[in-house]
Every structure is written in C-alpha cells, then in structure tokens.
C-alpha cells in the first residue's frame, strides 16, 4: 500500500503518551491514519521522572499507532513541555552591505543570529526563534523582506528556550523506544497549529492547553506569537486537590473528576450528594457535590488567574479579539469555560483540531490537540524546507533548531 509522506507526532504527556500518524497528501491536506496511545507512567508535570517506565510507555504508544495506522514508524516529531521552558521577545538588527542593497536569505540568518545574542542560562538551549515582524529601513509590516531593497533589516522574535538536559531526556526516551527524532516543538506552539486558523491569529487569540501536568499557553497578536509560557499546574493538580479535600484515593478522585466534577460552584444544590461505591481498598463514602465543585473551582480559577497575570505582564489583553481557545484534556472538564470567561473577560471556546481529516472521534477530542498539532507543525516545516514548493519563499517562521 503506497502512502504519501508519513508524519508522526509524539506527545509524551503527564496523563498519556500519544502518537499520531498522518499522511501529508499532495493537495496539502493532512489525513490522520491512526492514533496510538498508552497511559503514562513515570511522568510528572510533563517531565520524565522514571526513565525506564517512560520508555515502555512510548514503545507501547508507538506500537499501538503502527498497528492502527498500518504503517511502520521510523521517525517522530516530539512535543516538549515543562516548567523549565521560558520565553522572551527580542529584536535583531543587521546592516545590508552598501554594494548589495538587496536583502537575501543570508541577511535573514544574520538578523536572527543577532536577536539570539542574548544571555540565556548556560544550561539552556534555544528551542524556537519565532519571527514576529520584519522592518526594512524602519518600514513596518514587512511580511517577507527577501528581494527587497534596503540598508537596514530588523526583526522581532519570540524566543523560546529550555533546559538542555531535560529536553535531551525526552529525546533520549524516544530514541530508546526505537524511533528517530526529527525535531521538537513546544506544546503550546503545536496546539496552536490546530486550535487557531489564520484569521484568529490575526485578530489576536490565546491558546490555553491544559494538560495533565502542565498548562501551556501561547498568545497571538496581529498574526504573530507575542508570548508563550508553561505553568506546571494541570489536571493532576485538580485530582490531587480532590483527593486531599475529600480524603479519597487518587484513582477514585480522578474518576470522580471526570464523571461528576464541575468547575461551576453554583451548579450543585445544597444537600446534593454523590455516593461513591466501595472498591477494593476503598470502603465507599458519600460526598457533597458542592464541596467537590468548590475544590475544583478554586484550583481552576487560580490557574486562570496566574496565567492571566503572566499574559497581562507581557501583552495587552485588549488586543485579543478572537478570545480564548481552551484545549488539552482538562478542557473537557465541565464548567471550565465559564470560569475562564469569568477570569479573562473574553469569549472562551473549547476547541479541538480543525483543518484535518480522518476519524472524527480523534480530532474532535481536545486530548489529542497537541499531538495532532505536532503533525501539523511538521507539515508546515516540511513545506518551508522545499525550495521549489509554492510556499517555499515563506521563511521558516518558527526558526528550526538544529537536530539533536
């Protein structure tokens, strides 16, 4: 069976490891062939804490994906996250030699290089250098400066960096599981690929990917990435809060959160109780629904407030006109949209992957948004790499990092 190019996105998440196999079709569309997943073990807050268990999980997910997609997986694109990932904006400047005057690809590399001449901690790596805007001789709003005439080229970049060793651990984990790593991408950039369309990016939007262990967010303003961040708080924290607050085991708390939980404290009427059946090692009890919801509400609200605070410190919230896109596993939590709306005072949409084809059950589930986003990102990168393609002249806006 002949397949067009296969692209595989791998997300080693706190809750699950998930591999998405997709086909990059000649017409430019992306068709998902299969999704493999396995329950995560040895991963906390998006980072590997038990290496051997994590390798096994990745192996399982890859094998599952190979079976479902009926294809052999050789290499993957990997999403990374973790509280160690940091970002900032910087501007690069380069002067075009007098005798030339015309801006070429070399100058673009120079300007990017000059933007990266900043101090990041020794142990950190650049992950992305995302172009925001170009300026040629102070002319604003240049989309593609190649071929333009000018003396001075400037560019704003959003630069993402993280701790080298921690990224290497993720890479090694994939390699140990038997697949080569093409490249890495941070969770929020991946999720944004599927959660936002160009129109929303231009209007200004926030992507909030609430996963099991981390919340990754990305802010688009005027079509460019303005800010990104990772907060090491996610669905796990909600579960943990429930477990402590109601004094029930973690596994029971997780089920309760999914089946009954709501972030809306006003939803439960007084006296409304949930009966937990006895289980092995758990004697069963009756809990008040209002209590459960209050615990969830407190955590979710705090989470959004922290994110808002960080975004506000870096961006003007008034420039967000397309609202908040919630994605990730925790986006399925009942009532979470309302809380986000309350905190951000913006319209909130719960989104899953758009602009892909394949089994709908997969891409309509926000749990898979990151992994599908990785594939989408991979597709975008490959188009940019081909000089002959129609899109070839669009510069690589995400600034690829050298292969590990």
């Amino acid at each position, binding site marked *: 069976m002949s397949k067009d190019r296969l692209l595989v996105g791998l997300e080693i998440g706190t809750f699950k490891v998930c591999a998405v196999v997709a086909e990059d079709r000649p017409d430019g569309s992306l068709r998902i062939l299969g999704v493999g997943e396995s329950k995560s073990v040895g991963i906390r807050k998006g980072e590997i*804490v038990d290496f051997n268990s994590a390798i096994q999980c990745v192996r399982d997910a890859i094998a599952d994906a190979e079976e479902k997609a009926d294809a052999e997986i050789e290499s993957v694109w990997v999403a990374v996250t973790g509280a160690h990932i940091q970002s900032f904006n910087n501007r690069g400047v380069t002067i075009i030699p007098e005798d030339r005057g015309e801006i070429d690809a070399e100058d673009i590399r120079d300007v990017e290089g000059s933007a990266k001449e900043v101090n990041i901690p020794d142990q950190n790596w650049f992950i992305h250098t995302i172009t925001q805007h170009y300026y040629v001789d102070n002319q604003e709003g240049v989309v593609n400066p190649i071929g333009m005439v000018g003396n001075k080229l400037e560019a704003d970049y959003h630069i993402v960096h993280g701790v080298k060793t921690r990224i290497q651990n993720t890479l090694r984990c994939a390699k140990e599981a038997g697949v080569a790593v093409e490249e890495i991408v941070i969770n929020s950039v991946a999720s944004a690929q599927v959660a936002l369309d160009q129109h929303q990016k231009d209007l200004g939007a926030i992507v909030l990917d609430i996963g099991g262990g981390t919340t990754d967010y990305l802010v688009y303003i005027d079509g460019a990435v303005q800010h990104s961040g990772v907060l090491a*708080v996610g669905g796990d*924290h909600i579960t943990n809060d429930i477990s*402590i607050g109601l004094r029930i085991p973690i596994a029971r708390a997780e089920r309760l959160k999914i089946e009954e939980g709501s972030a809306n404290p006003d939803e439960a009427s007084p006296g409304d109780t949930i009966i937990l059946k006895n289980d092995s090692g758990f004697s069963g009890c009756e809990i008040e629904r209002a209590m459960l919801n209050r*615990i969830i509400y*407190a*955590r979710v609200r*705090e989470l959004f407030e922290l994110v808002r605070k960080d975004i506000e410190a870096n961006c003007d919230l008034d420039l967000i006109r397309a609202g908040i896109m919630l994605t990730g596993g925790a986006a399925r939590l009942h009532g979470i949209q309302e809380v986000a709306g309350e905190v951000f005072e913006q319209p909130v949409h719960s989104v899953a992957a758009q602009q892909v084809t394949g089994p709908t059950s997969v891409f309509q589930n926000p749990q898979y948004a990151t992994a599908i986003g990785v594939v989408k990102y991979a597709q975008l990168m490959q188009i940019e790499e081909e000089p002959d393609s129609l899109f070839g002249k669009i510069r690589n806006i995400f600034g690829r990092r050298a292969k590990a």
Partner: protein
Amino acid sequence: MLEIPRSLLAESGSAPRILIAGVGNAGVSLVDRITLAGFGNALDLLAVNTDGVSLGASVAPRKVLIGSKTARGLGTGGDPEVGAESAEEAEAEITAALEGAHIVIVCAGLGGGVGSGATPVLVEIARKRGALVVVLATLPFSFEGRRRVQQAEAAQTELARLADAFITFENDRMADLAEPLSGVHETFAMSDEILAGTIAAIFRLASTPGPIRVTTADLLTVFRHPGSTSHFGFGEGQGGNRANEAVERALKSPLLTRGKSLLDARATLIHITAPPDLRLAEIRAIMETVARHTDGHLHLGIGLDPDATGLAVALLASSGGAVTARPARPAPARATPPPAEEPVPTFSAPPVPSTEEEELAPAAPSTELFDTAPFTVEKPGAAKKAPKPEQKTLSLDPIARGRFEKSEPTIVGGEDLDVPTFLRQKIKLR
C-alpha cells in the same frame, strides 16, 4: 532614622569583626561545634554560662562564667530570673568580652534559665556598645512542657524587640529533617549542622572580600523595618549546575521554609560565596530564581574565596514590619505618646504570655524607647514580632502535597502550587 554607629564608620574600610557568643548550655555546645568545625581561627568565639562544669568542658577559646554569686557556679535550674540576674551581675565581664566586635551573633536555646534569662541581657549590652546583634535561637520541643515553652515565648518576644536580627529554629521541626527512625544523636547533629552552617554563612557574608561587598549598612537595610521577622536560608552546590543547586537548596532551607517566607519579604539579601571562577551567568541565574519568589527589594553581595570548594548562596530575608498581618494592634500603641524613659522590661518577673495580646503588648511601646535612646544602631528590633506565628503555618506542607510529594515543587510568586488551592486560600468547603 538610621544612625550608623561611630565605631562602624571609623573602620568602614576593613572587614567587620564578628564575635559569636553561645549563651547557656545549648549555645555553648553550638559554639563548641563551630570551634571543632575549624572556624575558630577566623572568628571570635565566646562561651557564656552559669555552670562552671559545662564551661570547663567547652573547647571555646574564651569563656565567661556569669552569676558566680547568684548561681554559685551551678546551673540555674531552668529559672530565667536567675539567668538574668547572673548576667546583670557579670555585666562588666561581658562588656569586656564583647569589646571590639562589630557584629555579635548570639546563639542560645530558649526555654532554659540561662538561654531565656541571660541572652536578652547580653544582647542589650552588645547593642549598647553599638554592635549589630544577630540572635540565633532554638525553641524547645513542645513535649518539653508548658513552662519551658512559655519561658521561650517570653524570651522570644523580648529578643525580637532587642536584637537587630532574630532567627529562630523550632526544634519541633527537627522531625521534618531526619527520617522518623533515625537516632536522636543524628537528628540533633543535623539541627546543629544547620545552625552552624547558618553562622558560617553569616560570617562569610560579612567578611569575604569580593567585587560586591556586603557592608554592615546593607545588613541594616535588610533588617531596618520595625516589626519585621528575619528568615535565613543557605545552600551549596558543586559542579556544572552549582548555581541552580545552591539557590534551590537555599530556598528549600528549613529555616526559610521552602521559599515561602520570601513571598512577603520586604527586603532580601542574597550573598554568593564562590571560588574566583564564578561567572556572571551564574549570578544572573541565582538572582532570577530568587526574584521569582519575592517582590521585595533585593540586595546582592558577592564574595570570592579561593579556598571555597563550591558555590554557596545565603539568603537573608526580612518580612512583615509596618504592614503586618495584624496591623491593628501595634499601630495604636505607637500612636500613644511615649513614656520618655521607660525602663527596658527585663526578666526579673518573667511574664507568662498565654495570649497573643500579652505577647505583643510589651513590644509596642518600646519603639519609642529606642527613638530616644542615644546610642542605638537603629530601631529595628523595636516592634519586631516573634516569627513563630509565621513558621507555624508551614506544618501543613508535608501532608498537603499529596501525590506531588516527591516531585519538584511548582513555586510561583512564593506559593507552592502543589498544595491544594482551597487549603492555601483557606476556602471553606462546607
């Protein structure tokens, strides 16, 4: 408001002389430990006790026997009154022993007779001489009985008011340090190690030469705010990641209580001691990490020590002060016209503060007392509140992290986000 004592101004060029005084049995044994650890040559060490036998066994280079009349060379029997009288009796000897010291670090175990009774007297004498006084005190185990705890609390209030900086270590927290099954000797050794390490760090802070020296004035800035509580943390790191290791350890130091105390710190002094190969990037990493935990002022000091084996970070934070959790009470007290010459409350009649009201009461009027006193270094101790209430809240820590017990804490703005939100925000669930 800030008067720098003449003695300090005169010799501002040279490193300040530091004297460590151990008072009472606990203090003396700590001084012994420091002597044995080899700091003895660089520091002035002084042991002060009423018990001639204990003093005789001490290896401290200088010793002062107090209360030869009152206590007749024996212990005080746990009575602070006897301790205070003994110290007053020996004022001349103590004054002589403190001669020439710019910074006096007083170590004592509160709760007993000498520790609770004599320490405040000694602190006062040192302050009168114009020295900067840092008190490092341990608080008794709660199982040592009500009386000792009360005596310790009284002394704590007194010392917080008198000293420039007051750092406490609750013995009860020892349980958090060591495994529950480890021997008592090991546990005590760990607590002593922490205290000795703290002293060594304070010493280095003030004495190691480097590109950014910490002067006594810097120390005063950190401690200046009346009503403030001091917290101290230190950590060391080696190898490639030493900067991060050191600062993480400093933030997790038991005395600093996992970086939490920094949240409301008004000022934080960060002192880095390292071999001369210290890089700017490391300093930056440390400062950025600390800055994430606090919004207060940051003061940086850097000492370069060719003999240092690793990079050490010491954090000295002062929190509370004018805007405290309970501002209502100290404020009206300050507004009342001060008694011109109110005698410093001593321990001749040890107050037994059973309520908070009583505990705060003696501290408030003394703000004014120091304003009129001629030779004080500054007014910090004045309304300084005992740090105890703040440290108590931390006992929640180990239970409340649940499944994140063993993972790296997520600390944002000084709050440990792994602890359930409803607990931190004290939301009523029912």
